[in-house]
């Protein structure tokens, strides 16, 4: 990373010696500049992302344990993968993850699209209130998880109190009960990320030219028809982009849930990433957990590919 200020360096060099090296620096070919500018980033990503990735793939075929550095690493073939895919527990974690992803996405699409349609009516002060609504999604998920444990306190928390204002259900042990714990994380995620879906839907709505609605008006289309034939098709690519991105993020979900329920009670909210952390950094089964990591990689990479395709579609 010795190229922090090439132009500055070049200019001071140019002052020192009017020809020669300085001239060569200043008149770098476009191709030279391009590679000079891109290489550091690519090298950094290779070192911090690709090299570790390859290492993970290698470790996934071994029985390595990171807490025993002296131990000889043994090649065990696909044993880790067989054990993972054959384990009912692992399928349980994946199912909990899928459950979490589906419910959060469903709720957030309904709420987010609804809010966007309302905000798009451009009432006075809509800009201010939109900003207020956006705040939760910028916060640290881990810290959000911490303070929701306080709000969720079964006997004294404000969540129980507010729910009891409407329905008299008594103390709600959102985090401790097997039935409610999955909902506790779904509620917090929805609170946090509905604004994301809303913001993208709003962008979609604002990209619809007025003349489409005017033309529909001339054709005497009703509001439902306008929504179905004009609004929805135009918003859909944005909505899909949002769902795909949030879906990937929630598939990887770790920080908020660790702080809120840490996977419990039992393993009702033990999402894939949380189990992975347990296997890798508490049980120190590095080889086995590397195999799990590879499985998650492949899934996320596939989804990521779809995401980029959706991105390009939205761009057009």
């Amino acid at each position, binding site marked *: 990373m010795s190229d*922090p200020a090439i132009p500055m360096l070049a200019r001071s060099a140019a002052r020192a010696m009017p020809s020669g090296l300085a001239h060569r620096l200043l008149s770098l070919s476009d191709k030279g500049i391009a590679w000079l500018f891109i290489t550091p980033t690519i090298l950094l990503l290779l070192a911090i992302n690709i090299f570790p990735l390859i290492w993970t793939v290698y470790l996934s075929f071994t029985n390595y344990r*990171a807490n025993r550095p002296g131990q000889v690493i043994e090649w065990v073939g696909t044993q880790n993968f067989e054990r993972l895919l054959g384990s009912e527990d692992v399928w349980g974690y994946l199912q909990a993850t899928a459950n979490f992803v589906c419910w959060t996405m469903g709720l957030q699409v309904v709420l987010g699209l609804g809010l966007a349609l309302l905000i798009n009516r451009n009432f006075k002060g809509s800009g201010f209130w939109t900003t207020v609504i956006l705040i939760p999604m910028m916060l640290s998920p881990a810290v959000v998880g911490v303070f929701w444990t306080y709000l969720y306190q079964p006997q004294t*928390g404000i969540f129980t109190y507010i729910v009891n204002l409407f329905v008299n259900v008594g103390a709600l042990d959102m985090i401790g009960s097997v039935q409610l714990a999955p909902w506790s994380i779904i509620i917090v995620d929805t609170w946090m990320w509905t604004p994301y879906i809303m913001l993208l839907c709003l962008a979609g709505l604002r990209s619809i030219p007025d003349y489409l609605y005017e033309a529909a008006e001339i054709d005497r289309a009703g509001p439902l028809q306008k929504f179905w034939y004009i609004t929805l098709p135009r918003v859909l690519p944005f909505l899909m982009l949002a769902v795909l991105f949030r879906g990937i993020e929630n598939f990887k979900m770790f920080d908020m849930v660790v702080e809120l329920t840490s996977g419990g009670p039992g393993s009702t909210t033990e999402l894939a990433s949380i189990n992975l952390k347990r296997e890798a950094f508490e049980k120190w089964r590095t080889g086995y*957990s590397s195999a799990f990591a590879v499985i998650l990689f492949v899934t996320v990479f596939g989804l990521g590919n779809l995401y980029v395709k959706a991105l390009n579609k939205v761009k057009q």
Partner: protein
Amino acid sequence: MTARANSVIQAHSVVKAGAAAKWFAAILVILYALVTMVPLVWIGLTGFKSPPDSIAYPPEVVFEPTLEGYVNLFTTRSRQTDEYIASLGPAETWYDELVRKRNMVITGPSRFIDRYTNSIVIGFGSTFLAVFLGTLAAYAFSRFKIPLKDDLMFFILSTRMMPPIAVAIPIYLMYRTLGLSDTALGMIILYTAVNVSLAVWLLKGFIDEIPREYEEAAVVDGYSRLQAFWKVVLPQARSGIAATAIFCLIFAWNEYAFALLLTSGEAQTAPPFIPLIIGEGGLDWPAVAAGTTLFLLPIVVFTVLLRKNLLRGITFGAVRK
């Protein structure tokens, strides 16, 4: 390219809604906004409650404010007998007095300030590096013909998609070997690598919007490519660079998984530390709330500053308002 982007911006549709429909929309949206703010306002208030007030039922909206939570956040205390406290003589400061009311004496500062400082150092350090590298790469991607450009851009984005816990295993091993575990430098490098993908994608969008004619004119005037980049493009991209920097800073500030796994004593940032405040002597919710408030407040401010560029930031620059 730019002209097209502009025409999309100007084509904003304004759905003409009747007055009643507008009122209806406004009421629902404001209602949602108020509900969504309840948790945050509640945490802000709890920071000023005494520990008994913080666990009262029904929850207390009106209470006697105290700075006990903040004092507890910044200090470590030990419980003492009445005789011992009496033997100390009158309390010298208001915070000594506050603590002694609970039969405690202050034994020293807590580690919160260290953790907060770490968050600032690592956040700004990695942001600077990521934006610096990102600006260079984004300029090259925006202006030059690069073989496999789309594949490289996808590669850069895909690194951001990886689950942090999955990458953490080899990085943990790598850092252990290199002696980078639990160092600020290690965390700065790591966060730079995660953020640089966002920086490249965002900044490419911003630089794409700067007309090429500006640079071409500068080159005609005798500037070299590099000089044109330095004197023409960078000043034009200033606001885009600032927005990108804030996004990187927010990510580094909020990051938890790597910080939890790769730091313990020295370089730990605030997010893994805040839950540890709960520890001593039962649940000290006001202190947790105080720490949470101090940690989240800068982000709320940044969100308000960023509101025009928020959409770009969260979609890697793909969607522009």
